[in-house]
């Protein structure tokens, strides 16, 4: 229990995201405003965001200005430690013509009193525990609501646990003794008509409003959480880390080695992926996926999903049939294993490795078509569940 509590403290002190906008009843000793500025924009403005090891909350601006506020609050923290923490912050904002640039680089300074590094490192690195997830035997169909709940819970779990820990502080002697906190808040408000170009590294961003902006994002080792992403000019390049969005409508998205991609609804999007695990709650119209060696979980299809195309190699696709609608499904390629309930079809590798039509379900004249080009793949189909048979 003591360790769990220390982890909570650490989460709280390292990130703004676990902490809601409403301040708790807890009074902090010192508040430092690291950066506070606003910039007027117009439709030609580009907002360049460079964040490293930074957590930020993103909101839609109430007017045509970009607002940035970055504060740190300390409780029961020695002056020297505060000074040391502030010393390692690099924050810069400027406006040049139609370009607004905001850069932040933060270095953590956690004290051992608050954290059992040894336990953390050992637990985090347990191979058996980490690889345990891959031994799942059966995958159940998830509803769209269930996926949306998963996305929402990914943030609130930590926040709620921390808030409850705050309320129960008297029951934690160690908390009472140390009582040492740092609350970091970086809030960025962006008008919806400007272009956002973001380069993110080891950062953690939560977008609290639907994001209509044209976005060009390059994220590495970062955790991103969105509501709706809907600009047709969106270009996302995500390398490692996590990506969660309740809706992705329009744009081009690239995922490489991403530990978890969860998308509620997908529409008019092009996804290129490799070595990634992706879960999609509902497939809408006009989607195209190009993949190499990822794991896909496609839970539902909208009634009018139209053409859904996948081009895959060494991919592991788990597809739940569209419910309550007629559809056409075909797979083209070679050397791919198809599993449907207890029936298995293996299309062996042809001498010339030529692609051919492997399975067909439904009439080709149907307006809802699933076409999967697959080489060296595994495709499992299911109604309510899919037996991975591993």
């Amino acid at each position, binding site marked *: 229990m003591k360790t769990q509590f220390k982890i909570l403290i*650490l989460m709280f002190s*390292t990130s703004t995201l676990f902490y809601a906008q409403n301040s708790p009843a807890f009074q902090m000793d010192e508040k430092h405003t690291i950066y506070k500025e606003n910039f007027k924009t117009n439709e030609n403005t580009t907002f360049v965001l460079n964040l490293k*090891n930074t957590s930020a909350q993103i909101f839609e601006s109430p007017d045509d200005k970009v607002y940035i506020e970055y504060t740190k609050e300390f409780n029961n923290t020695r002056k020297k430690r505060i000074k040391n923490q502030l010393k390692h912050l690099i924050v810069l904002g400027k406006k040049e013509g139609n370009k607004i640039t905001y850069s932040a680089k933060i*270095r*953590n*300074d*956690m*004290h*051992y009193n608050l*954290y059992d*590094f*040894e336990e*953390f*490192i*050992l637990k*985090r*690195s347990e*191979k058996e525990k*980490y*690889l345990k997830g*891959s031994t799942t035997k059966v995958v159940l169909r998830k509803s769209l609501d269930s996926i949306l709940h998963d996305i929402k819970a990914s943030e609130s779990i930590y926040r709620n646990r921390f808030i409850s820990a705050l309320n129960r502080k008297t029951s934690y002697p160690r908390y009472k003794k140390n009582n040492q906190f740092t609350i970091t808040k970086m809030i960025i408000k962006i008008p919806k008509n400007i272009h956002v170009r973001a380069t993110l590294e*080891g950062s953690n961003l939560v977008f609290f409003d639907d994001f209509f902006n044209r976005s060009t994002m390059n994220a*590495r*080792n970062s955790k991103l959480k969105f509501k709706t992403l809907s600009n047709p000019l969106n270009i996302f390049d995500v390398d*490692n880390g996590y990506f969660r969005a309740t809706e992705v409508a329009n744009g081009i998205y690239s995922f490489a*080695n991403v*530990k978890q991609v969860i998308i509620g609804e997908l529409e008019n999007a092009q996804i290129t992926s*490799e*070595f990634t695990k992706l879960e999609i709650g509902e497939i809408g119209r006009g989607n195209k996926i190009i993949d*190499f*060696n990822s*794991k896909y979980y496609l839970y539902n299809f909208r009634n009018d999903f139209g053409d859904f195309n996948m081009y895959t190699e*060494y991919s*592991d696709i788990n597809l739940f049939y569209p419910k309550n609608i007629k559809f056409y499904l075909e797979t083209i390629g070679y*050397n*791919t*294993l*198809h599993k*449907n309930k207890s*029936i*298995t*079809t*293996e299309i*062996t590798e042809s001498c010339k490795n030529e692609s051919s039509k492997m*399975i067909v*379900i439904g009439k080709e004249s149907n307006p809802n078509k699933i076409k999967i080009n697959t080489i*060296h793949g*595994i495709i499992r189909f299911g109604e309510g569940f899919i037996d991975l048979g*591993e």
Partner: protein
Amino acid sequence: MKRDIRALFKGEDLGNKTLPDNHRDEFLEKLKKQQNTNTNNFFFLKIAAVLLITLTVGYNAFYKQQDDEDLTIVAQIEAIEGEYLVDIETEWQNFIAIANDEVLVARFKKKLNELDKDYQEITVEFKNDKKSISVIEILIDNLQTRLQILKDIQKHINIINKENEQYENTI
């Protein structure tokens, strides 16, 4: 031969040398002064020495503690890294033993090299900031990703090969 030693001092003028009246007081005063001076010097020297030792020991203890903590983390990370790299190498050898697709092997090699390059960059960051939880997480994630993709592709190939031998039906 017997001899009276008193005869030796005969003729010596000893009676003229007399001590001043306050010689005793003067002597005591001089002695006191000398004692005071010596005691003061020694006292301050002791204080200085104690302070110096305390500061040195305190300074060393403080930084040694920090160094020890840093070294512990570095040692742990290095141990984890070593363990993972051995496993990754083993899985790589297993993978190339069962993969008969050169393009696939080349693609994995490229990916593993990219991840290794990424790891080296993060390691530099870790050396500058050993207490950063997020950096440590990213380091461990990187190692786990490498091991995971190698295990997954082997499982993938084995499933296809196994089923290929057993079934040839049509849905």
